[in-house]
């Protein structure tokens, strides 16, 4: 199967069967659970994850080599963590032979480009053993998130327990239980510009990709895409890591995923085309046509 949702072998709705993971998870705890399983089974030596940075809600990529380290990175931070920046360092400074990496669709594209065209990624291509992609409509800079939470939602960043985009709103949950919702109309202008040429919503190039869209609260939609991803996923299922339901039996199901994917891709395809005639007989670069 290809198209907006990419090639995949299997699509299910799933959640971790580990209560401790679910308590900290954004949705079904898929990424944390799958990396935990892969670490414990020796499928990977370490995973590049987005952990806590220098400021509240500012993520920083780091290499988790233990389950404890992995757990500090769970949950979604709606701003940029340059995951791929650690990919060579993981094989060098950390000496890892089997790397896991989680990232957005564009970061999965970067990983696969790095495997086929490893210009500056000596000895990296064969060491990527589990690439987990997360669904992504767009991302924000840290300053944008700060502005949304502090100026629009009038909350202090370090008093925020969880952020979420869902049901057409940007949700900010405070530590004391307060909830603020912002319409996406407000958030749009703060989006990272580079996201507007992205032609991938559900991380088509990951081994396994996951996100909340399509599944009920507390569950995640999971696409198993590659041979390698399928192998690891089946082992995790056999080990009882996940509860699953057929995607056809959950609401809102694949229909919503397809709708959002199509919306994102056609909107951004249009942006790519408009960029070509941005000036007067002069356009902006189109990376899909080449490096010139």
């Amino acid at each position, binding site marked *: 199967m290809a198209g907006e949702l990419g090639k995949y072998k299997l699509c299910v709705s799933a959640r971790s069967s580990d209560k401790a993971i679910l308590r900290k998870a954004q949705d079904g705890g898929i990424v944390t659970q799958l990396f935990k399983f892969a670490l414990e089974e020796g499928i990977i030596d370490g995973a590049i994850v987005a952990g806590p940075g220098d400021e509240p809600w500012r993520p920083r990529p780091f290499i988790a080599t233990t389950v404890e380290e992995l757990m500090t990175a769970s949950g979604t931070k709606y701003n940029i963590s340059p995951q791929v920046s650690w990919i060579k360092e993981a094989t060098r400074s950390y000496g890892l032979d089997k790397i896991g990496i989680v990232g957005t669709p564009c970061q999965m594209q970067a990983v*696969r480009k790095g495997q086929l065209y490893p210009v500056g990624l000596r000895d990296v291509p064969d060491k990527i053993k589990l690439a987990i992609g997360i669904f992504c409509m767009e991302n924000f*800079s840290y300053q944008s998130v700060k502005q949304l939470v502090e100026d629009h939602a009038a909350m202090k960043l370090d008093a925020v327990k969880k952020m979420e985009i869902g049901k057409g709103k940007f949700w900010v949950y405070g530590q004391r239980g307060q909830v603020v919702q912002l319409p996406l109309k407000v958030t749009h202008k703060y989006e990272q510009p580079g996201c507007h*040429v992205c032609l991938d919503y559900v991380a088509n190039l990951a081994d396994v990709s996951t996100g909340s869209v399509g599944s009920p609260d507390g569950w995640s939609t999971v696409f198993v895409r590659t041979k390698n991803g399928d192998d690891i996923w089946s082992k995790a299922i056999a080990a009882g890591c996940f509860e699953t339901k057929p995607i056809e039996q959950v609401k809102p199901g694949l229909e919503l995923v397809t709708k959002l994917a199509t919306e994102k891709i056609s909107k951004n395809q249009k942006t790519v085309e408009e960029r070509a005639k941005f000036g007067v007989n002069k356009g902006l670069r189109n990376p899909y046509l*080449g490096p010139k």
Partner: protein
Amino acid sequence: MADKITVGHVHMSGCTGCLVSLADNYGGLLTILDKYADLVYGLTLADVRHIPKMDVALVEGSVCIQDKISVQEIKETREKAAIVVAVGGCACYGNITRFTRGGQQNQPQHESYLPVGDLIKVDVYIPGCAPCPQLIRNVCVMAYLLLKGNKDQQELAKKYLTPLMQLADRGTEACGCDLMYDVVNQGLCMGCGSCAAACPVRAITHEYGKPNVNREMCIKCGACYAQCPRAFFNFDVIPEFEGIMDAIDAALK
């Protein structure tokens, strides 16, 4: 094997690190030489004095224009080779030889070094310092498929090599600044971190999701821009990563 391609390593002003990178394919290099390519020229590896006719020339190093033999040899390379590949930052962009102003013993008058593409037409670029063994390997395999493969294989090789040919067309100057000019200034950067990972001298960090280049440290090897998925991303090749990587692995078994 009769239908192997012929490959030569042409050494201009470089440190031999690119050749070492080629050798760093270990068993893979032996398989390439066994099944797919005959090494017909190479200062350190083949006992041949003059540049022979060959299918693919892998050129390492920039050209010192005060050294008549270098100039003559690079022109001869263009005449004798069907495909000229600039291997490594020096051949592509000058790299650290961009900083030389002569004065070194024992040829202090050798002061001007140009990327190969300033003197001859180059077909394919492999940027980076040192270039990555696996990329050199991939290009060798694809060059073989292009010249000796069946129709499907030729098609794949053409698609695979296209962006590296476009890089050769793009020019002979590279710098960490390219990330600003051609990615960030163009509204294309999404902060993935590829550039920082690719940089051999750790001149690139990410500050609040965007690359920050220490220009004093940049050696102008071109790896960052070439690695950036917003420099080029070919949808007719990269999404097929699984099949292509399996095919390359199988070819080198």
